[in-house]
C-alpha cells in the first residue's frame, strides 16, 4: 500500500467539498430570490395529504412499533451480507458456503427466538 501521500493529492476531495457546499448555498439563495413568496394562515399550516391537522405529533406510541422497526432493520441489514457473498460465490467456494450457512443458521435461530417470544403477535 502507498502510504506516502502528499497534501496536494487530497486536492480533489477539497474541490468536491467546496462544490457540494457551493451547490447548496447557490440553490438556496436563487430559490429564495426568484420565487414569489406569499404568507397566509392556510399556507403556513402543515400539509397532511389534504386531511385537516389532528392533534400533536408527540403522542405515546405502542412499544410494538419500535420492536418491529428494530427487528426490520436488523434482518434487513443482515440480508445485505448475502450480496457480496453472491457476487463472490465461486471464488469463496465451499468454505464460503459453509460460513454463510452458519451465518444464516444463527440468524434463523434468532428469528425462531423472536417468534417464540411472541414479539410478532400483534393482538396481545
Amino acid at each position, binding site marked *: *500500500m502507498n*502510504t506516502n501521500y502528499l497534501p496536494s493529492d487530497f486536492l480533489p476531495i477539497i474541490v468536491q467539498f467546496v462544490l457540494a457546499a457551493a451547490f447548496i448555498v447557490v440553490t438556496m439563495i436563487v430559490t429564495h430570490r426568484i420565487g414569489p413568496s406569499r404568507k397566509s394562515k392556510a399556507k403556513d399550516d402543515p400539509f397532511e395529504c389534504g386531511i385537516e391537522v389532528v392533534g400533536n405529533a408527540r403522542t405515546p406510541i405502542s412499544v410494538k412499533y419500535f420492536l418491529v422497526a428494530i427487528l426490520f432493520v436488523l434482518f434487513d441489514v443482515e440480508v445485505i451480507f448475502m450480496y457480496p457473498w453472491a457476487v463472490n460465490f465461486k471464488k469463496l467456494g465451499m468454505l464460503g458456503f459453509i460460513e454463510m450457512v452458519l451465518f444464516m443458521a*444463527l440468524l434463523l*435461530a434468532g428469528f425462531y*427466538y423472536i417468534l*417464540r417470544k411472541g414479539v410478532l403477535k400483534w393482538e396481545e
Partner: protein
Amino acid sequence: MYPIVLLSVLGIVVLYLGFLKSKSILLPATLLFLVVAMIGNFFEWNDGELLYFKGMFAVNKLTLTFNAIVLFSAFMIVAMTQGFQDNEEAQPAEYFALMLFSLVGAFMMIGFENLIMLFLGVEILSVAMYVLTGSDKRNLRSNEAALKYFLMGAFATGIMLFGIALLYGASGSFSLNGIESFVTLNQRSPSYLLYAGLLLVLIGMLFKVSAAPFHFWTPDVYDGAPSIFTAFMATIVKTAGFAALFRLLSHSFSGIYDFWWPTLSILTVLTLLVGNIIAVYQDSFKRMLAYSSISHAGYLLIALTSMTKQTENAILFYSMAYSFATICAFGVLIPVAREKSLEGRPNESYEAFNGLAKNNPLLAFVLTVSMLSLAGIPLTAGFWGKFFVFSSAVERELVWMIIVAVLMSAVGIYYYFRVIMAAYMKEGDTATIRIAPFYKIVLIAATLLTILFGLAPGLFEAAM
C-alpha cells in the same frame, strides 16, 4: 478458541432453555456450560502459540490464564444469582445468555491479534453489559444507569474506532504485528498520525476500565445496576480490559514506550487520587466499591505504565486477587442489603452492616477478608497483588509513583475498615440471614482462595 465457539452456541441454547415451563434448569445448565467452556479452555494449554481466523486471534498460555480467571469469576457470579428465583420480573434465560455472550467478548479482548477483533470484543462485552445494567426495569436508578452507560460507552467506542482508523492510516495495517513492524521501522521519525491514533484508542480502553478522568460514569452505573451485575462489571470487564490494554501496549507499542509512559503515568496518579479520596466520602457501601474499583484500576495502571517483564504476572495476579475479593464483597452486600431493605429497595449504606457479626459470623468474616484483601493487608492475595505491581514499578525506578500509591493505599485502609468496624464494633440488630448452601460454598471458596494465595503466592506461578 474453544471457549468462544462453545459459549456462543451454548448461549443460544440457554436462550432456548428459557422457553421451558420450569425455570429451575437454567442455573445448573449455565453453570454446566461454564464448566464445559473451562474444560475447552485448557484443551489448547500445551499447544504453545496458536493463531486463528487468518491471524486475527491468538491463543497462548497468557490468554488462556486470563480466560480461566474470567471464567472462574463468571462461574462464581452466576452461582450467586441463584437463578433469580426471588424476583418475579426477572428474565433469567436472557440474563444468563447475555452473561455468556459477554464472556465471548471478553475472550476476544483477551486474545485479539487484530484491532478489528479488539473492537468487536469490546462491543460484544459492552452491549451485553448495557442491557444487564438496565435489567431492573421498574427501578429508575437502573434505567438512568443503563442510559448513562450506553451513551457514554457509545462515545468512548466511537473515539476508540477513530483511533483505530488513524492507526490504520499511519501504519496501513490493523494487525498488531503490522503496527509493531511499522513502529520499529519508524522509531526515528515519529508519525503523528500514529501517536494520535494510539492516544484515542487508549482513551476508549481506559474508559472501559474506568480510569480517571474517564471514570465519571462508574459510580452512577455501578450504583444503579443490580448488585449481581455490578459484580460482573467490576470483575470481568476490568480483567478483560486490562488484558487488552496490556496486549496492545506490550505488543505493538513497546517501541514507543517513551512516548506513552508520561501520559499514562499522569492518568495513573490521577486515577489513584480520584478513586481513593472520593471513596472516603461515600455513605453507600456499593458506591464506595465503585470508587474502590476506580482506585484498583489505578494500581493496575501502575503495572502497565512500568511495563517490565514482571508486568504480565503482576496484572494477572492483581486482577485475580481483585476479582475474588470484589465477588466476596458483593456476595455479602446482596443478602445484607436485601435483609435490611428500606421501602422495598435494598439498603446498601454502611449502616446496613451495623452489628452484622453478632448473628452472621460467616458473612462478617467473608466481608473482613475481602476488605483486607482489597486494602492490601498481608496474608491476603491483595497484598501480593500490590507487591508485584509495586516491584514492577521499582524495576522501572518510578519511585514517585509508588509513593503516591502507598499513600493512597493508606487512605484506602480507612474506608475499607469502616465497614469492618460497622460489622464488629457498632450496635445493630441483624437477624440471622438465611443463605442458600451453594451461595455459602461460593463465598467460602472465594475467601479461602484469597487467603491461600495470600499465604503462598507462588502457587499461582506454579500453576501457570
